[in-house]
């Protein structure tokens, strides 16, 4: 392998990469217009970028810590410094894992409880096959995600929507449940909860939330038609939802309607392919060109 840079530059390179991937890169991706044309590829890119940011941050910490092996007889101060770098890295990882654990446990408990309640109170209706109907003056529809998912539609939504619009709504929710979009969002939310301000984790979480809506819309318009889906969005967009609901910064019903019915072209496929390639590159290239030489060097150093 050609060494483009001295191996001792690894900590600095990884730190720089982590900073770029945690700051300017998500900011740029969050502002871009094209993700709404290729939501699946864009979602993969967000995941790849987030994973790469995390790996380079952890890699930076560990490579700093292992710099100690380059000294013949390190003094006590040097040793302490390197041990703190290692401890800090472990702390970052532990915090993320803990956040994911807390969030996952909380969500699963709430969903189990909600599923149980829906089963006890929700009736069924021939107009919305497979869904539970809740009697409520507010028009809403949602799915309770999980291994055993539930589709829920309010009686008011049933009254408001025509049959083909109900079908579009159900297909949208089924797509969420089938593709386990909840798990995708859970990952980004765990990251945001662990590091709320330090990195642009909020941009990543909000972008992912918007992209899974688009993916579910695409599935729904394939199965139930773009126009019924568009009409359902208009009808349910202004349903009264009380204040305090999360989700600012997501795509709005307007942007969702505007992208419906767009034909898939060669240009879409080209764009998607390059985004997938970028997603792979962003994870693989730093690993192969920076992390691997470091590990190889380290193993020589220690043997």
């Amino acid at each position: 392998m050609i060494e483009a840079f001295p191996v001792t530059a690894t900590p600095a390179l990884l730190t720089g990469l982590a900073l770029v991937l945690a700051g300017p890169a998500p900011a740029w991706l969050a502002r871009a217009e094209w993700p709404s044309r290729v939501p699946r590829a864009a979602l993969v890119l967000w995941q790849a970028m987030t994973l790469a940011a995390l790996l380079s941050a952890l890699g930076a910490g560990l490579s700093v810590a292992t710099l100690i092996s380059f000294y013949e007889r390190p003094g006590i101060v040097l040793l302490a410094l390197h041990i703190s770098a290692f401890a800090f890295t472990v702390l970052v990882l532990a915090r993320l894992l803990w956040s994911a654990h807390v969030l996952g446990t909380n969500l699963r408990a709430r969903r189990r409880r909600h599923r149980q309640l829906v089963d006890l109170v929700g009736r069924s209706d021939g107009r919305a096959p497979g869904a539970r109907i809740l009697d409520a003056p507010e028009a809403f529809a949602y799915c309770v995600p999980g291994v055993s998912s539930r589709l829920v539609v309010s009686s008011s939504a049933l009254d408001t929507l025509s049959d083909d619009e109900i079908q579009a709504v159900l297909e949208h929710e089924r797509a969420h449940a089938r593709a386990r979009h909840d798990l995708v969002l859970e990952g980004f939310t765990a990251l945001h909860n662990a590091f709320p301000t330090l990195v642009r984790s909020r941009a990543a979480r909000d972008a992912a939330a918007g992209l899974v809506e688009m993916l579910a819309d695409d599935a729904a318009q394939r199965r139930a038609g773009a126009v019924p889906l568009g009409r359902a969005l208009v009808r349910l967009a202004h349903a009264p939802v009380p204040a305090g609901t999360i989700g600012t910064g997501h795509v709005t019903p307007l942007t969702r309607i505007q992208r419906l019915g767009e034909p898939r072209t060669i240009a879409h496929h080209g764009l998607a392919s390059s985004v997938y390639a970028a997603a792979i590159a962003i994870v693989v290239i730093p690993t192969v060109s920076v992390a691997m030489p470091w590990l190889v060097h380290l193993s020589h150093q220690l043997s």
Partner: protein
Amino acid sequence: MLRDMRDGRRTQLGELERAVMEQLWALARPATVRDVHQALSQTREIAYTTVMTVLDRLAKKGSVEQSRDGRAYLYRPAVDRDELTAELMHEALGTVDGDDRTSALVRFVDTASADDTAALRAALAELERREQAQ
């Protein structure tokens, strides 16, 4: 196929649990399996043992309370219907209290939209026009 069958069976059980709860709420007194079975039999064909199984499941989930009266078991709802609906609506409408505002649900339209109605209608009209042209 297998998944469909399992889903079907699960939906059926869920529907039965709901029907049994409805009866218990309607009876408004501790009821025996026979009481519930009799009430349910007016509207559907159902086996006595099925009612027993469903009541047992509900008791395990904590939705009904089981007590012993001589040789028969008595069942009554452990939860008030209105309280249950209120709790359900809190989560459904996203008005759960506390620090954790993370939604447990995936909604069709997530937020009360700030888009104005005219813009939404215009976008829809444009979509309808596009689709018609095709």
